[in-house]
């Protein structure tokens, strides 16, 4: 048995129309993914302000994943296209500042892709577990 096994805290921003429904489907189909993933439902992936991502890290997240409808399928026509540009620049900047690039991810998950949701989360959690605790974007005041 491993002692002090690292359990990462993952924040997943999921859009209401696709990815959140995808997570629901994963549940209905009894597909398992780690309970370390905390889902925050947003009306559209483009609701995710770069500040949300940073704030999640501040409050102790070890990884942040943003899930939305596949490009072209946005409930609001074009929201996820903006998300894509915004997160591209944000992730690139975080990488530039020396924050591990594996800690942030964008995935497109539709309402029909319960299996993809589960496998994406499983994969992301295992990557973050390998990477270890978020040290470079931590706020020591927020440690318990």
């Amino acid at each position, binding site marked *: 048995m491993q002692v002090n096994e690292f359990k990462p805290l993952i924040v997943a921003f999921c859009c209401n129309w696709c990815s959140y429904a995808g997570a629901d489907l994963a549940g209905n189909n009894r597909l398992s993914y780690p309970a370390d993933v905390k889902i925050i439902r947003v009306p559209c992936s483009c609701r995710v302000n770069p500040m949300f991502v940073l704030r999640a890290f501040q*409050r*102790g997240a070890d990884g942040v994943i943003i899930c939305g409808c596949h490009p072209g399928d946005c409930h609001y026509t074009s929201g996820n296209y903006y998300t894509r540009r915004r997160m591209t620049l944000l992730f690139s900047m975080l990488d530039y500042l020396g924050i591990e690039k594996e800690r942030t991810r964008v995935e497109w998950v539709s309402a029909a892709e319960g299996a993809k949701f589960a496998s994406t989360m499983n994969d992301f959690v295992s990557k973050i577990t390998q990477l270890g605790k978020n040290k470079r974007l931590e*706020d020591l005041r*927020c440690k*318990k």
Partner: protein
Amino acid sequence: MVKFSCEKIDLVFAEIAKTAALYIPSNDKNNKAVFTKWQKGTKLCDSHNTQIGPKDLFFPQTEDLMAFKASNKKIEIIDTRKESEDFVIFGVRACDVKSLEILDRVFLSEPRDSYYAMRREHGIIISLACTRPSEACFCTTFGIAPSEPGADISVWKINNEFFWQANTKRGEELLLKIEHFTTPAEPSEVEGEKQRISVLMKRLPLANLSTNGFGKGKTNELFEREEWAKLSEACLGCGTCTFVCPTCQCYDIKDFNTGNGVIRYRCWDSCMYSDFTKMAHGNNRNTRKERFRQRFMHKLVYFPENNNGLFGCVGCGRCISKCPVSMNIVKVMKKLGGNV
């Protein structure tokens, strides 16, 4: 008074650092002088004043005051204070020594600020006479003699020797610790240097700046002067001048929600900021002109009003070299003062 040759300075620093944290002015990688915690290899930099004064060693930019935790309808208050370590600051200029006197007036008068007082009790200040003042220096305007820097120990660097003169009991105790590196010296040995500095100060471009027209009782005369509008025109409303100022002492107290409790802390504040001293009814000073006026009136009128004529500026020149738009206290004094 004692003296020792400059080569021994690292040995002296090592000796002091054995019993206390030692801070000395050292060049950072941009070649700017900053107070740096001494460790083996930290080099004392040449004769310039530091980018920012020693203020934050006594009054840090942010400081936790206490913490709160809520559980089962109870709020627990946690005292986060830690006893300060003993520390020594070397190389404090006369202007910065004076600035601590000004901060003392604020923090050590009733009600006494225990956080500041604790650091003050644990800190020994070794001053250093200026050898090469900058063109922006105007400490003599406020009656400060850079050749007599004061504090616990006064130090002069003359040619290849340091002269240390203890001024307080704590200073004498420290001199005893480094006794084996020093030889006795006569006060007359630094007279020449003092003379040289005094002559030098008279040659500075701002040497003739006068405090005429400012000080106690000048509030009504200066407050409504129309020049304030013009003077404040270029001001960006940033806090550079306040944060590099060794005497600016305003702070804000804020709560930070950590997600599992609250930390109450204080941090430097700037009267240049739009939400400075913001209260339930809004803000006292809504325009940039009012905020700009506040800073200079505080230093040149309100502070002396409440402190027997002691001005709230020490003429260190930092705001002059750091202001993004080069608007500073000297320009204000020349515009509004009794003589130009």
